[in-house]
């Protein structure tokens, strides 16, 4: 009995201590990590979504509040003068959350381009969602009336063979983007001037 108690106490103290230490370090590095993600993940994605933007979408970013959480919006002015926004949504993949940056034209409600940002997918399998541009390229030019589910689920998106879970995560992120956009469009237009 004494030995049992001893084991329970040692393990509890150890895990509690490690939890406390990790949460302290997490909160200490959160801002830095967010800046790094912005620089190395979001910035390249946005550069590919708005290759000919005449403004600086990164510098002009702003937040809109939805259901208590903040969504970062990157406004872009396209070469032909029409306005667009890009923002990131998350779906759940094989190794954790997958971020999808979606650019939507505010005038036509069409997706301009989409790019995968942060992910933890299996190298060589799930990572094709990010590296093989023909997969995320499917979203380009699609209107928001499109069903972004996978083809196997009566949608219009071709899954990557061998990486169904990853593909589904991306498709869920796209569906979420559509939903958020439809809900937040008035708010976004108000803020974008």
């Amino acid at each position, binding site marked *: 009995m004494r*030995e049992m108690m*001893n*084991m329970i106490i*040692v*393990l509890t103290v*150890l*895990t509690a201590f*490690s939890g406390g*230490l*990790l949460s302290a*370090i*997490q909160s200490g*590095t959160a801002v*830095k*990590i967010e800046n*790094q*993600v912005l*620089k*190395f993940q979001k910035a390249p994605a946005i550069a590919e979504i708005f290759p000919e933007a005449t403004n600086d979408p990164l510098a002009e970013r702003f937040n809109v509040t939805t259901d208590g959480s903040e969504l970062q919006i990157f406004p872009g002015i396209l070469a032909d003068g029409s306005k667009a926004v890009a923002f990131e949504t998350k779906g759940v993949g094989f*190794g954790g959350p997958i971020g999808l940056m979606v650019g939507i034209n505010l005038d036509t409600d069409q997706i301009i381009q989409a790019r995968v940002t942060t992910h*933890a997918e*299996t*190298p060589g399998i799930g990572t094709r969602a990010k590296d093989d541009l023909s997969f995320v390229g499917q979203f380009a030019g699609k209107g928001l009336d499109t069903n972004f589910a996978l083809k196997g689920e009566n949608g219009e998106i071709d899954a990557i063979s061998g990486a169904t879970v990853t593909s589904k995560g991306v498709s869920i992120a796209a569906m979420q983007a559509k939903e958020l956009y439809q809900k937040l469009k008035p708010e976004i237009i108000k803020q974008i001037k």
Partner: protein
Amino acid sequence: MAQSLAKEFTKGLWAEIPPFRLVLGLCPVLAVTKSVENGIGMGIATTFVLIFSNLLISLLRNIIPSKVRIACYVVIIATFVTIVELLMQAYTYELFLKLGIFIPLIVVNCIVLGRAEAFASKNGPVLSIADGLGIGLGFTLSLAALGAVRELLGNGTLTIWGGTPVFEMGASFLPFQFMIEAPGAFVGLGLMLCMMNLIGKK
């Protein structure tokens, strides 16, 4: 004392150099040694974890009940691995992207758990740090050496740190694509082990 300290430190550099002599921790060795830079990054991350987990386990060696010792070791190791992961994301994000999934996998690296069980749980903190540092440096050196061979033959470049190559083979060099793939790591590892045995033979 000083003599045994030096002994514990230097054994990791040759006599018990992890991937070659102990043949442990092969998963990261095979996966990340596509370039010297990746190898050094992985080695430093592992060294950090080794030093701190060895230190903590050695300090707690009389408190941790032997029946749950493995669980305690894993908690300690996982904590330090998560710290490394967060720090790498905050300060060396590009390297973090290249090493990706293999950073969290340090938790199940046999070298770290092996040193905890075989050394830190039986020795004092100072010796344990020396042991962790030695084994970690040995691991870093082996990864860098294997990375150098594979990068030089497979890609024709050598990149020590920061993404810009310090040496290039020139346009007339045709890279062996094979050396960058996983089988190249096995062949490279085997040849290096063979050479080490040849040198060490009395």
